[in-house]
């Protein structure tokens, strides 16, 4: 090695060391911030991530992992972890009424205060040098009442500040008080200001003209329970329900997050009001996926066979144009259909009205809405099978058809005796994955019908065109109570169904590979 390359090498090493040091310091700072925010598990995870990253890029032993690390970490963090975390959420009562952990809920409650208006004092602001002195006096004070005064204050910004008040001798001369409008310009600073009184009380800003003591609402007891000070009612944490509950059964809002075991799953099976719509959505999901695949496959393969026929002209043109639905982004074509099917303004009803004099309510009638869903999905899906089948047909030896022509076979016989048996096998894993895809075809439902029309008389809104994933989305994020736990439990059920389908897929593919 020459001296020049030696130098370049050292320079690189120094750079590497500097970067590693910066990453390590930044990482430690982040871990500390997370830890001090009361999330020890999360801090531990971040620490492990940063430490493994540093190890991989600094140690000579982990050469392959230098290349693997980003990809594997990406998959672990954003694919594997969300799956595992979803399963865990499925065993909790995480929802809009149970958002926080118990510790956070307790801290939130203990921070609650009420202004004690009976003991409020009126304040005025008096310029003194380049600051302001705050003077407190009882309301409608007689001239002899005891007043209190602060040192000159800057009253800028909204940083929390404590001023020590002292008794104001009765005969002190003060500059004239500021007008209410001028006082209001200092509102942010006043709101952040705390006044320490000579008698140890701390007063806070309670109104435009007043400072007053604030009283805590809750007192924490040694046994983790909380007592409300104004009526001495004690609430005990109930970790089965995730609420602080009083002796008379009163539940304190907000509740907190607890593990509830199989309660969400039990609800799917045992809760009659929930089970009804859940089961019909499940059945519709299967029917929808099966119909979509069957129709797309039927149309796509028929077209592929037809376009494989050499007697036909313009085949490339047909193929290109028929491929178009696949090239248009799904979110646009689905919305286009949503508009075209509109009952009053849509083009489809315009044509139906002109020809047959009917205007079907595509979005209000469950059966019509489901029909529309399958039609649109077939439009979206058949080019996929057209392309697949075209590829597979090319692989069939021509002499098979020549032999069948000599035997005098008709086209249909050709299709069912030669073509179909030869393409079914390579197609089957793809059919399974297309089924799995449509089983979870959230985008179509979400953009076309959003699950509507809804079932009548259900406690949690559920739609007749909802499929399982869109239903979980509704439960988690839309109108059905933000029940993350229940949504995650249903998602977990779908995981197992998808895993089953993937397993079937792999088995079929492996069998095909073995038989050649």
């Amino acid at each position, binding site marked *: 090695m020459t001296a020049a390359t030696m130098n370049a090498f050292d320079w690189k090493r120094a750079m590497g060391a500097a970067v590693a040091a910066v990453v390590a310091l930044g990482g430690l700072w982040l871990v500390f911030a997370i830890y001090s925010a009361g*999330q020890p598990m*999360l801090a531990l995870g971040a620490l492990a991530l940063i430490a493994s990253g540093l190890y991989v890029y600094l140690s000579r032993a982990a050469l*392959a992992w230098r*290349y*693997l690390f*980003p*990809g*594997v970490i990406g*998959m672990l963090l*954003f*694919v594997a972890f*969300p799956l595992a*975390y*979803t399963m865990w*959420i499925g065993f909790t009562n995480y929802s809009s009424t149970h958002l926080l952990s118990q510790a956070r809920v307790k801290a939130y409650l203990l921070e609650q205060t009420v202004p004690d208006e009976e003991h409020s004092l009126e304040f005025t602001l008096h310029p003194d040098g380049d600051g302001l002195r705050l003077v407190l006096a009882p309301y409608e004070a007689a001239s002899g009442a005891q007043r209190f005064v602060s040192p000159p204050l800057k009253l800028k910004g909204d940083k929390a500040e404590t001023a020590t008040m002292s008794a104001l001798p009765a005969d002190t001369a003060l500059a004239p008080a500021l007008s209410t409008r001028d006082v209001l310009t200092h509102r942010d600073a006043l709101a952040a200001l705390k006044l320490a009184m000579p008698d140890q009380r701390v007063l806070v800003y309670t109104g435009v003209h007043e400072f007053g003591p604030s009283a805590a609402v809750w007192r924490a007891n040694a046994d983790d329970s909380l007592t409300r000070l104004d009526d001495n009612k004690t609430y005990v944490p109930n970790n089965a329900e995730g609420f602080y509950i009083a002796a008379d059964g009163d539940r304190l809002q907000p509740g907190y997050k607890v593990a509830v075991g199989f309660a969400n799953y039990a609800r799917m099976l045992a809760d009659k009001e929930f089970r009804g719509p859940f089961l019909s959505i499940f059945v519709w999901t299967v029917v929808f996926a099966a119909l979509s695949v069957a129709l797309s496959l039927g149309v796509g393969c028929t077209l592929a066979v*037809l376009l494989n*026929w*050499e*007697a*036909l002209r313009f085949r490339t043109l*047909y193929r290109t144009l*028929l491929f*178009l639905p*696949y*090239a248009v*982004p*799904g*979110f*646009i*074509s689905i*919305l*286009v259909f949503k*508009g*075209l099917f*509109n009952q009053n*303004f849509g*083009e489809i009803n*315009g044509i139906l009205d002109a020809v047959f004099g009917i205007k079907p309510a595509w979005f209000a009638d469950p059966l019509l809405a489901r029909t529309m869903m399958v039609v649109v999905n077939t*439009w979206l899906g058949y080019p*996929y099978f057209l*392309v697949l089948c075209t*590829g597979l047909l090319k692989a069939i030896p*021509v002499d098979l058809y020549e032999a069948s*022509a000599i035997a005098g076979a008709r086209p249909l016989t050709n299709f069912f005796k030669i073509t179909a048996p030869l393409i079914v096998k390579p197609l089957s*894993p793809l059919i399974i994955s*297309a089924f*799995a895809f449509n089983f*979870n075809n*959230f*985008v179509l439902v*979400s*953009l076309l019908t959003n699950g509507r029309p809804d079932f009548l008389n259900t406690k949690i809104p559920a739609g007749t065109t909802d499929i399982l994933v869109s239903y979980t*989305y509704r439960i*988690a*994020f839309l109108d059905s109570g933000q029940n*993350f736990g229940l949504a995650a439990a249903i*998602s977990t059920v*779908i*995981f197992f169904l*998808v895993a089953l389908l993937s397993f079937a897929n792999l088995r079929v593919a492996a069998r095909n590979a073995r038989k050649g």
Partner: protein
Amino acid sequence: MAIVTGKNQRWRVLGAHALLVALLVVTLFPLAAVISISLRPGNFANGSLIPREISLEHWKLALGFDVTTADGVVVHPPFPVLLWLWNSIKVATIASALIVAISTTAAYAFARLKFAFKMPILNSMLLLQMFPPVLALVAIYAIFETIGNYVPALGLETHGGLIVAYLGGVATHVWTIRGYFETIPVEIEECAKVDGASHFQAFFRVLLPMAVPILMVVFVLAFVGTIIEYPVASILLREESNLTLAVGSKYYLADQKYLWGDFAAAAVLSGLPITVVFLAAQRWIVSGLTAGGVKE
């Protein structure tokens, strides 16, 4: 093909053409209709496929210009379509570039290096990819909410967070690139190493330049995949100015504010470039299809 043709061959050909033309009409009708609607005046107009009166009002609104109607009312663009398009392109470009970088390095390890549990790791990555992110939306939302508490630039309502969320889906790309690397003879890199190149130099200076075609293919695939992604973007982004096209477009057809004509113009405007990219990349996408990918 030397097949004897029967008498009714001509009728069959004609029948096939009729069937194909009928299907073409059904297939192309929605696309033609949306172009026609974008040129019709008004948001509720019914009419023939070839508009009798051409109006550019929807196009002006889609491009962000105000429109003054005949009775003097100034109509503002209902949604910032160009901003959404820009958001989409920005997120998709950055995410795809990062996806290419991550998958290429991982693919290099799988194709060229020896390490423990190589195939189990690759297989479990591919297996994980079979679970679509839409199943874990609750967890993804919670994760980015938490991340946002400590690293605000990657939290909810940020494009950084969305880009990071897209970086998990690399397994199929790793598989594709690895397959391509394995077709390149390893001897070339070995020669480079004999000449004193480090591992990384052999990878970066020797192997990568030979793999540029597949990198471009993966970039385009990732670009199309992320620009049309809807579920994750729809939970991470809520504010109007932050939305991507895939999330924003649906607001045109809200029940209470139905802007059919404006939607049509915006759809053509934003859908056309994506469609053109898709058609240009068609050959590669189709070869990827047979490997088991399904369109979203």
